[in-house]
C-alpha cells in the first residue's frame, strides 16, 4: 500500500467515523494503530493477547437467516446462492436414522426457511449455522503453496487476497466447505471472523444481528469471557471431530446427524 492511499483512507475515515470512534473507547484506541499506518504492529490491539473462537448454540437458532444477510452485507460477499462466508442448514432427521438426514439450505438461509415439513411427521428438525471453524491446525493453511492463507497470532485464519494465486487447493482441503473463489477477484474468500470489527472491539456482524444469541464470539485468552462458562456448563462438540483440525467453532446441541 502506498502512503498517499493510506492518508486518503485516513482522512476519509476520520470524516466519516469521528462520532462513532468517540463513542466506544476500544474502537478509539484501535484507531490509533490505524493512524500509525502499520496496523499489524499497533500497540492497542495486541493479537497475542487474544485467541478467538465462536460458540454456536443450536438450541437457540431459529433459522431467521439474519446472520447470512448481515455477513453478506458486512463483508461484500457475492449474492449468488453458492458463495457464503456463513450459511444455515436445516436438518430433518426421521426416526433414529442419523445416517440419512434430509438437509437443505435454500440460498444458504439468506431468505429464511419456508416451511416444508409437517409438525407431526415423527421427525426432528433443527437449524445448524455454519462458518469457518478457524481451525488451529487448518488444512487450508497447510496446503496453501505461498502463505496466502494463514493463522494470525490471535487464532483467526485469514486470507491475503493480494497474495492469493487462485489455485483453489485450500478449497479442496477444507473439510467443512467454508471457502469459495470470489468471481470478482479470482482469489479465495471465507469468513475472516469480521477481523476488521473484532480488532476494533466490536463483535462479528453475524453475532451482532443474531436475535437469540445463538452465536457468540468468544476470546479464549480472556479469563472473564462468558465462553469459558458456557463450554464448562454445556456438552459441546465441534464439527467433524475425526478431522482433528483443532476447530474453534464450538457447538451446543450438535446432533449426531450433522456433518
Amino acid at each position, binding site marked *: 500500500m502506498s502512503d498517499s492511499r493510506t492518508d486518503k483512507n485516513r482522512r476519509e475515515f476520520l470524516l466519516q467515523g469521528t462520532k462513532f470512534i468517540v463513542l466506544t473507547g476500544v474502537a478509539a484506541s484501535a484507531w490509533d494503530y490505524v493512524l500509525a499506518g502499520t496496523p499489524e504492529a499497533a500497540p492497542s490491539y495486541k493479537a497475542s493477547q487474544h485467541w478467538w473462537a465462536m460458540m454456536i448454540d443450536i438450541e437457540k437458532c431459529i433459522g431467521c437467516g439474519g446472520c447470512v444477510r448481515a455477513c453478506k452485507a458486512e463483508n461484500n460477499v457475492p449474492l*449468488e446462492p*453458492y458463495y457464503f462466508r456463513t*450459511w444455515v442448514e436445516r436438518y430433518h432427521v426421521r426416526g433414529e436414522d442419523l445416517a440419512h438426514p434430509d438437509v437443505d*439450505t435454500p440460498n444458504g438461509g439468506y431468505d429464511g426457511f419456508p416451511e416444508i415439513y409437517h409438525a407431526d411427521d415423527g421427525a426432528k428438525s433443527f437449524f445448524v449455522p455454519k462458518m469457518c471453524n478457524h481451525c488451529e491446525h487448518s488444512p487450508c493453511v497447510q496446503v496453501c*503453496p505461498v502463505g*496466502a492463507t494463514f493463522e494470525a497470532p490471535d487464532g483467526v485464519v485469514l486470507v491475503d487476497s493480494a497474495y492469493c494465486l487462485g*489455485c483453489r487447493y485450500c478449497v479442496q482441503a*477444507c473439510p467443512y466447505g467454508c471457502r469459495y473463489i470470489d468471481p470478482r477477484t479470482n482469489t479465495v474468500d471465507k469468513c475472516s471472523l469480521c477481523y476488521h470489527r473484532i480488532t476494533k472491539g466490536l463483535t462479528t456482524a453475524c453475532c451482532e444481528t443474531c436475535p437469540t444469541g445463538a452465536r457468540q464470539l468468544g476470546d479464549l485468552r480472556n479469563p472473564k469471557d462468558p465462553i469459558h462458562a458456557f463450554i464448562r456448563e454445556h456438552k459441546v462438540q465441534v464439527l467433524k471431530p475425526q478431522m482433528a483440525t483443532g476447530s474453534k467453532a464450538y457447538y451446543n446441541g450438535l446432533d449426531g446427524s450433522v456433518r
Partner: protein
Amino acid sequence: MEETLLAHVQGFMYPNEMELQWSVLIVLYPFITGLVAGAFILASLERVFKVEAVTPTYRLALLTALAFLLVAPLPLQLHLGHPERSIQMYLTPHTQSAMAMFGFVYLWYLMAVLVLEIWLDYRKDIVLAARSSTGLKQKLYKAMSLGIDNISPESLRIDDKVGRFLTIIGIPSAFLLHGYVGFIFGSIKANPWWSTPLMPIVFLFSAIVSGIALVMLMYMVVSWFTRREISMECVDTIGRYLMYAFIIDFTLEMLDLIHRMYEADESFKSLDFMVQTKLFTSQILVQIIFGTLVPIGLLALPQLLKLSEQARKGIYLLAGSLTLIGIFAMRWNVVIGGQLFSKSFLGYTTYKMGFATREGLLPAIILLVLPFAILWVLVKLLPPWQDDTAKA
C-alpha cells in the same frame, strides 16, 4: 448461471461446493507429468538396467519426456486465478504444501535431469551438426554446444559416465515428480476419494504404464512415418514391460478398491453410489474394462501364443492406445470424481465442461497436441536415430 448450477445438484451439498474447483486442465496435469515420468523410466531401462532391446527408443523416450515436461506447467498456469502471481511459488514456497514443492521438483527434473541428460547424450551430434551446417542453424547448434567443439573419445567417455550418473539420480527424481503429484491428492484428508497413502504409488505406476505405452506408440508411429523398420525385439520387450507395470498398477488400484469396500467407512455409501452412477462410464467402462483389463489381456496374448509380426504390431498399437485412454480416464476419475460428491456425503453435483472457455475442452485439446508439436521440432533438431540408415 445460478439456475443451472443449482439444477446440477442432487441431494445436499454445502453451498460453496456447488462450483467445481478443478477442471479438465487439472486432469491434464497429472496425465502429462505421468507421461514424462513414465517415458523417462523407460529410457532409464536401457541406460541403467542395460535392457539392450529397448535401445532404439532411448533417445525418443528422452525427447518425448522433455516435450511433455515443457507443457506440464501450462494447464496449471492457465487454471490459476492469478497466473501472474505464480512466481510466488518460488519466492515464498510454503514448505508444508505439496503444491509449493512442485516448482522446485519441476525445475530440478527439467534442468538437472532431462536437459542435462539429453545434452550429454547428444553433444557429439550437436558438435557434428555445428560443423556441417551453416548460417542460423550453425549458430543454434554452436550455442547448444556451448561453443566447445571438443568431441574427443575421452570427453565422450566422461559425458557417458556423467550421463549414467544423471540417469541414476533421474530415476528417483522421476519417482519424486510423479509420486508427489499423487501426494497432492492423497494427502487431502477432507476428501475420502483422494485421501489414501496408496495414491502416490498408484499415480507412479499408472505414470510408468502411460509413459511406456506412449513411447511404444511413438516409436512405432515415427518409424512408419520415416520408413524405418520397427525392431520387433524392441516393441516385444516394451510390450512385456508394459504388461508387468500394468499388472502392478491394476493390483494396487484393486487393493485400494477392496480396502475401501471392506472398511466401508462413513464415505463409502456415497462414493459407491457415485461410482455406480456418475462415474460408471468413465471409471468402470473406460478405465477398468477398456482401459485396463482389455489392454492387459491383449498384451498377454503374445506371451501365450505364437503370433505373426503383423498381429503383434496390431496388438501393441491397440493396447497402447487403450492404455493411454484408460490412464487418462483414471486421472479424470480421480480429479473430477473427487469433486462430484459433497463432503457431507449427502449429495452430488455435475461437471459441465465448457468448450472455448479458459478451462474448456478446446484449450485442453490444444495442450494435448502441443507436446507433439514440440516433439516434432525436437526430433528435427536432434534426430533420435543414431545413424541415418534404417535399422535392421
